[in-house]
């Protein structure tokens, strides 16, 4: 299935203020792979994720999602394939009620009403959020907000899931159920996080980004048990691998 492939070829990106955030990033993710992106603050993780859905376009180099090259012309098409979960759920939940918010994407895909309703209900029940249906987002707790934000993206049935710090602001139990949820998503996914235990649990592959470059790329168990590599990138061993 070639259409779930993500490929970055020598991607450079410079922000308008001159900061070079990505300096030649290359990697290839095949269908069904689950990849963690880790790195120090400001290493370029969020910038990288924003290239997946065309929120940012590379200054040079090429991003390929499935069989499409990312350009201003194809980003609409690419957004149908890639579901992005933002760092702050308040940025993502913009509709007045949970139901309307989850229905927003499917309605924009042009699905008929019965179908939209079905998608919304199934996405919400996947995140255990069916009871929140008629609530306005500002009356939800942080954990509920992020569950709903994920449901809103799942309802579009994306081929690829891109998440930026999904577990930030979650209490341990919500975090645990998020991990369970992520494991049920069968398609390719890319998760940027400082929560290395979450990466270890959810992703079989891990990419370390440092100063806008790929510093290391390999199986999560190898990368996340390499103390020297991690410490050179402002990281440390996942708690589950720390022996005292």
């Amino acid at each position, binding site marked *: 299935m070639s259409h779930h492939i993500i490929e970055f070829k020598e991607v450079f990106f410079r922000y308008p203020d001159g900061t070079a955030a990505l300096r030649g990033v290359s990697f290839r993710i095949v269908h069904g792979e689950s990849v963690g992106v880790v790195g120090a603050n400001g290493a370029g993780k969020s910038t990288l994720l924003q290239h997946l859905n065309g*929120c940012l376009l590379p200054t040079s180099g090429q991003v390929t999602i499935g069989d499409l090259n990312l350009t201003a012309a194809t980003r609409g098409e690419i*957004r149908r394939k890639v579901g992005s979960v933002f760092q702050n759920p*308040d940025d993502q939940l*913009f509709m*007045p009620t949970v139901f*309307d918010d989850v*229905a927003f*994407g499917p309605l*924009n895909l042009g699905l008929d009403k019965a179908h939209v309703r079905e998608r919304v209900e199934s996405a919400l029940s996947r995140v255990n959020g069916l009871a929140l249906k008629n609530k*306005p987002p500002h009356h939800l707790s942080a954990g509920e907000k992020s569950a709903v934000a994920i449901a809103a993206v799942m309802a579009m049935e994306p081929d690829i899931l891109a998440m930026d710090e999904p577990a930030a602001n979650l209490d341990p139990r919500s975090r645990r159920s998020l991990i369970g949820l992520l494991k049920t998503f069968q398609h390719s996914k890319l998760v940027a996080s400082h929560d290395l235990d979450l990466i270890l649990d959810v992703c079989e592959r891990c990419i370390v980004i440092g100063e806008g470059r790929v510093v290391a790329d390999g199986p999560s168990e190898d990368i996340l048990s390499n103390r020297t590599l991690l410490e050179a990138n402002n990281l440390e061993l996942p708690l589950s691998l720390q022996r005292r």
Partner: protein
Amino acid sequence: MNFHTQYFDLGRLDRLSYRRTAVHSLDPRAKVIATGLFLVTVVSFPKYDVAGLVPFLLFPVLAATLGEIPIGFILRKVLIVSPFAVFVGIFSPFLDTRTVAVIAGLPVSAGWLSFASILLKFALTVSAALLLVATTSFPGVCHALRRLGCPPIFVSQLLFLYRYLFVLAEEAMRIVRAWDMRAFAGRGRGATVFARLVGVLLIRTLDRAERIYQAMLCRGFAGDIPRLGTLRLRSVDLVFVAITAVFLGACRFFPVTEGIGLLAQGIWR
């Protein structure tokens, strides 16, 4: 006036709309039209006509009672915004000093009469609008407006205003708290610091707007905010609009107050 309590009061108006009463279950479009008619009728009264406005109090009182909305809550909200109306009307007693009536030996000037009419109109219109939101929910009103043919851009603006009012208030609350913790008596409390805080809030808001817009694009936004249409106009709704229209028309074009007064006098005799 405390920032925090105001903030939570805002949520209360919102929560009132979750109730299920006869008023809540009316079609939002019917309620929007009825409220619109009410506002136009009230505003159309000439500026010295206070007596004619009195019967209109029945509308908010009925809506609040049937909708189980605490009247005290609505009155408090009306009071909070009342300074605007007071400022608009406060000069008429001084400018318009013609005596139009003498009550219990005190001359009443036309200015006082028009001042009273401004206040009454203000109380009627604001409470009607608040009751509309309290019995319909803000999104319900927006949805109704959209279905009644309001341009999508206008409706989206209203929806965002409602959605992000709470987020903005929280943001402001955080900034004020952080400032309060490190500003001590006399220091760091000047206007320049305040101006900078407002600037920070503006920049954060712009950043957020950018991120929200990106999130919308990611989910296929193309100018209109679609919503599953679940509204159905029942005969009850039509009857409600018809009765409201008749009531408003009667109160506007016939001297109802005078009629009741004469009737009362007749019984008295």
